[in-house]
Every structure is written in structure tokens, then in C-alpha cells.
């Protein structure tokens, strides 16, 4: 207690030096904490979006692109696939669920996804209001899309061709919102979902290859909106077979499927199969290089702070050698002096660490709120990562190391010679 109080008094006696050193440590710590939190939340967001998706089947091309476009809705699709080709794999016994996706249109930057109700089920999404689509041109909006694009119940809107704003509008055939989803904290929040028919209808119009589809499907929409059972349909229906989707999301029946199914799809068909978990890891490794660089920079910042603490303690030692000698005269042992100086380094480091952790988490929380408000991405500063405990420990070690040499000199000092000199 005595030494704690004395160390505190000594730090307070040089408030500017102490604060600058604590601030240096805090800035380095905050940078590292922020990078850790961002990295962690980024990868956990990616993992959350791909949670129930073992495999994506789509057109040949870049597997990362396929995953980005079909799982994260962040890139353009690799191309289209013929529905019948995909259905062949959907029927495979190794596949538990297969969810078809048909992409291509958007509304005010929010992608319109033609799919089945199995898709929101992948994310355990619940309706906040309304119902799921039952007829073509009925749509359900994700929570963020609904809020930001004003897609309230019964709102009609025209999809635009293309995945970014400004494409040609399908003005003649507007969608109608029949339901809005509750927030899921996933990519789903930023999508507008509709039936596959809706997308086929619109694009059939343009391509004029399937003039009579619209008519057909209007007659029996019930048949069409559940493509989980599509393979049971009469495959003699040439139109059905020739229709195209963008991709298909697959959930394995058993983990063993991972060893055979992707390879088989890639070699035996014109399709491409990509595993999100694998592609995301690859992607994160690339991004990780950049994060590592930033982390190293923050580490340098902390080391600089460590040296600054060292310089401050070491510089103060000369001025304080009489004080230290006097402490010995008052009854302090060498070991106690050693500890008292280590304690000063430790307290500075602890102060810097606490400030840095608070700053890092606070900043992350602010970023999280901004992201939630502007992007509908959920991120928070109020999480504690296991790595942070190590960071804290490392900082305390740096504090002790910075004080080690001054402490050792105080330990070694010859009191009689100091007082005589």
C-alpha cells in the first residue's frame, strides 16, 4: 500500500510526462484493439451470412466471385445456369436443402433476389409484418431495405435492371411489398425477396424467348413458387428445363458430402461448386495481410510508448537518486525500492491499457452504431476478445520492462556514496 501510494504520488508529481506516456500507450492499444474488433466482427459477419450454406453452385468462373455474389450479394454473378442442370444436383441424396437464387435486378441499390421461402428460412428470418409472396411480382423486403428504401406494406416499386442504381427500369411491371422481415443481422436485411417467377417474367419479357411463360405461371403460381420440389416436376416441360437461375445454395445432408460433392460437380458438369467457408478463409487471408500491416504499425506505436516510459523513468532516476537514498535511510530495503520503480512502470502501463481499451471499444461501438444506421450491418464495441487479455498482459510486461533498468539501478545504488556525493 505504501509503495502503491508513493508510486502514484511520483506519477502525479510529473503529470505531463505521465499523461503523455499513458496517452502514447493508450493510442497504440486502442489501434490494436480496434483492429482486433473490426477483424473479428468482419469475419463473424461473414461467417453469420454463410452460416447455413455449405456449398454454392453456379456458373463457371471465379469461386470467390460466385460466393461473393450469391452469399454476400457483394459482387456480380458469374453468369447463369440452366435450371435443369442445377436440379440434377438438388436431387442428389447428399444434399439436404437446395435453394435456387435468381439475381439481376435491384431497387435503389438493394438487390432483388428471386428465390423460394427456403432462402429466408436459412437465416431463420421471421416476418415482422405481412406474409411471404404467393404470386409473381409480390415481394418481401429485408428489415434494412424496408427502412431505407421506404418499402412498407403494399408499396409498389419498379425493379431496375442491374445490381447498382440507374439501370433500366421494369416500369411496366411493378413489384408489390406483401411482407417485411424482422432484422436478422445478416445480409438478408439488405435484400428484397421475391419468387423465381417474378424474375423470370421480367426477363422473359426482354429476352422474348419465353413469351408464354407469364401466361402459364399466372395460371398455376402455387406450382412454381416452391423450387425445393422442382426436380419432381414433369421434366418434359421444355420451358421449365430451359429456364435459367443464377445459382443454388446447398446444405449438405451430412458433412461427408464435402469430400465428394464439390469435386463431382466441378468435374462432371458445366457448373461450378464453391464452399463459402473455404473461399471466405482465402479472402480473409488476403485482407488479413493488410490488417497485419496495420497491427504491426500499432505494435510499433506501443513499443515507442514503452521506450518513452523507459526514458521518462530513467531520466527521472538521476533527479530522484537522493530521494531513493533517503528512502533507504528511512528503512526501505533494496528490494522494496526495486518494486516501487517497477510499480511505477506497471501503473503507467495499466493506465495506458485501461485508457486504450476504453478508447478502442468506444470507437468500435461508435463505428458499430454508424454501420447499423447507414449500412444495416450489426457491429458492437461491447465484446471482449480472448486476444485482448493477452494484449493487456503484454502491455503490463512492457511497463515492467520499461522500468526494469531504472529499478535495477535503484536496487544497486550505494546509499553512502550517493549521500556523500
Amino acid at each position: 500500500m505504501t509503495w502503491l501510494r508513493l508510486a502514484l504520488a511520483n506519477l502525479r508529481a510529473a503529470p505531463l510526462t505521465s499523461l503523455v506516456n499513458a496517452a502514447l500507450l493508450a493510442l497504440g492499444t486502442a489501434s490494436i484493439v480496434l483492429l482486433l474488433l473490426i477483424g473479428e466482427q468482419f469475419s463473424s459477419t461473414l461467417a453469420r451470412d454463410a452460416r447455413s450454406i455449405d456449398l454454392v453452385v453456379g456458373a463457371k468462373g471465379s469461386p470467390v466471385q460466385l460466393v461473393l455474389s450469391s452469399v454476400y450479394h457483394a459482387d456480380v454473378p458469374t453468369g447463369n445456369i440452366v435450371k435443369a442442370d442445377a436440379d440434377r444436383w438438388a436431387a442428389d441424396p447428399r444434399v439436404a436443402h437446395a435453394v435456387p437464387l435468381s439475381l439481376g435486378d435491384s431497387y435503389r441499390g438493394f438487390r432483388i433476389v428471386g428465390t423460394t421461402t427456403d432462402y429466408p428460412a436459412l437465416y431463420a428470418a421471421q416476418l415482422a409484418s405481412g406474409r411471404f409472396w404467393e404470386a409473381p411480382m409480390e415481394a418481401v423486403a429485408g428489415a434494412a431495405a424496408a427502412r431505407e428504401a421506404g418499402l412498407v406494406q403494399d408499396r409498389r416499386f419498379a425493379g431496375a435492371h442491374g445490381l447498382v442504381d440507374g439501370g433500366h427500369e421494369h416500369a411496366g411491371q411493378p413489384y408489390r411489398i406483401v411482407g417485411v422481415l424482422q432484422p436478422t443481422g445478416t445480409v438478408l436485411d439488405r435484400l428484397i425477396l421475391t419468387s423465381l417467377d417474378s424474375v423470370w417474367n421480367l426477363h422473359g419479357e426482354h429476352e422474348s424467348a419465353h413469351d408464354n411463360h407469364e401466361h402459364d405461371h399466372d395460371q398455376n403460381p402455387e406450382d412454381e413458387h416452391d423450387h425445393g420440389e422442382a426436380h419432381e416436376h414433369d421434366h418434359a416441360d421444355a420451358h421449365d428445363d430451359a429456364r435459367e437461375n443464377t445459382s443454388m445454395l446447398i446444405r449438405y445432408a451430412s458433412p461427408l458430402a464435402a469430400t465428394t460433392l464439390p469435386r463431382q460437380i466441378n468435374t462432371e458438369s458445366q457448373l461450378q461448386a464453391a464452399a463459402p467457408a473455404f473461399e471466405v478463409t482465402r479472402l480473409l487471408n488476403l485482407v488479413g495481410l493488410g490488417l497485419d500491416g496495420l497491427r504491426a504499425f500499432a505494435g510499433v506505436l506501443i513499443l515507442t510508448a514503452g521506450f518513452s516510459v523507459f526514458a521518462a523513468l530513467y531520466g527521472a532516476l538521476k533527479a530522484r537518486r537522493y530521494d531513493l537514498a533517503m528512502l533507504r535511510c528511512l528503512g526501505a530495503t533494496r528490494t522494496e525500492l526495486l518494486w516501487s520503480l517497477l510499480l511505477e512502470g506497471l501503473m503507467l502501463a495499466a493506465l495506458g491499457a485501461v485508457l486504450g481499451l476504453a478508447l478502442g471499444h468506444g470507437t468500435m461501438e461508435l463505428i458499430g452504431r454508424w454501420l447499423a444506421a447507414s449500412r444495416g450491418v450489426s457491429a458492437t464495441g461491447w465484446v471482449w476478445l480472448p486476444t485482448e487479455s493477452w494484449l493487456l498482459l503484454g502491455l503490463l510486461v512492457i511497463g515492467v520492462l520499461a522500468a526494469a533498468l531504472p529499478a535495477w539501478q535503484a536496487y544497486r545504488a550505494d546509499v553512502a556514496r550517493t549521500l556523500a556525493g
Partner: protein
Amino acid sequence: MTVLQIDNLGFSYGQRTVLRLDTLTLNEGDTCAVIGPSGCGKTTLLHLIAGLLQPAQGSVAVCGQRLDALDASARDRFRGHHLGIVFQRLHLLPALDVLENLLLAQRLARVSPDAKDARRLLDALGVGEFARARPAQLSQGQAQRVAIARALVHRPALLLADEPTSSLDDDNAERAIDLLQDQARAVGAALLVVTHDRRIRGWLAREVQLEPPA
């Protein structure tokens, strides 16, 4: 009770003998001045009594305990508990206020901190109003009184003072010696003043003349 017992004491740096003192005994309540010119080993004597140096020959015992028989940590603790030292340069800790300086001295002496007692002592020395002041805010005279209070606050058996009058005029020098005597007596400590200041002659009960060793 014998507070200080010095026998046949000698100290040298290499071949050079810097101190010789055959015998000196101080009992409880004794006051004594060790007077000698520069270079006669006064500071060395003080350091030997405080256990900061170990005798090359002879012995120093404080309260019956030979300091060189103790290990380093025990010696530090023994010094803190049994001795009070007022150096010429006072070395009050600048980061602590006056009262905290006294409380720290009590803790390091391994007596339980007693703020009331510390304040009483400061009052007795006429610096009670500065209890919460920083050492840097005190005049030289006030700081010396605080240093005396700090050396006595744990009620040591022996108070050592190194050149307490060297920077003072005649009136203040006599007052400083009186203060040391009175306060040492008040806590029951023996007093040993080490000085080259010849004005001190006759002010303390006993005097020892220290000569440079041949």
C-alpha cells in the same frame, strides 16, 4: 540502556584510513556533538553508525545490535526502526506533502502510521500549518523543522544530525540545536550531532573532537 556503543572503530578506502575512533558510548537521553574539520571522517562515521557502510575494524552497536551482523535487508529495517537521521541536505520527498512524508517515515520504520502523532510533532516544531504543503513551498528553516519531525516521528532510539547548523546564522544555529535537543528528549531519543561548526561547542552535554587520522 546503551543506545550507541563504538569500539576501536576504523574505516579506510584502500590504503587510505579515513576514520579512527577508539570509543564512544551514548546512553538513553544523552546528547553529544562530534566536532572536527573537513576530512576527519565525520560523514563516514555517520554512515557507519547508520549501517550504510561496514567498519573495516572495530564495531558499532546500536541498542546492543551490531549492524554488520545483520543481512542487508534486516539492516535497512533496523536502521529505519531505531535511527532517525537529519542530513545537511534534507531530502524531503518532493512528490509527497509534509504530512505524507512523515507518514511514509512511520511506515518504513514499521510502526503503525499515526497522523495525529505526526501532526502533534509538526505543531511542536512550529510547522503544523504546513502539514499539507509540498516541500518545495517551504523555506529552508521550515524544511529543516519538517526534516527533524520526519526523523523523530517513529520515535527512534537515536537521532543523528549531519551539519544541522552549517547554513544558519548564530541565532538560528543555536535555535536549531535547541530544537534537536528538545525534540529528541521529548521522544526519548539520544542525540548525536556531527559537525565542523565550532560555534556548537558548549551547546550539547558532551563533545567529542574528531581528528583526521595520521
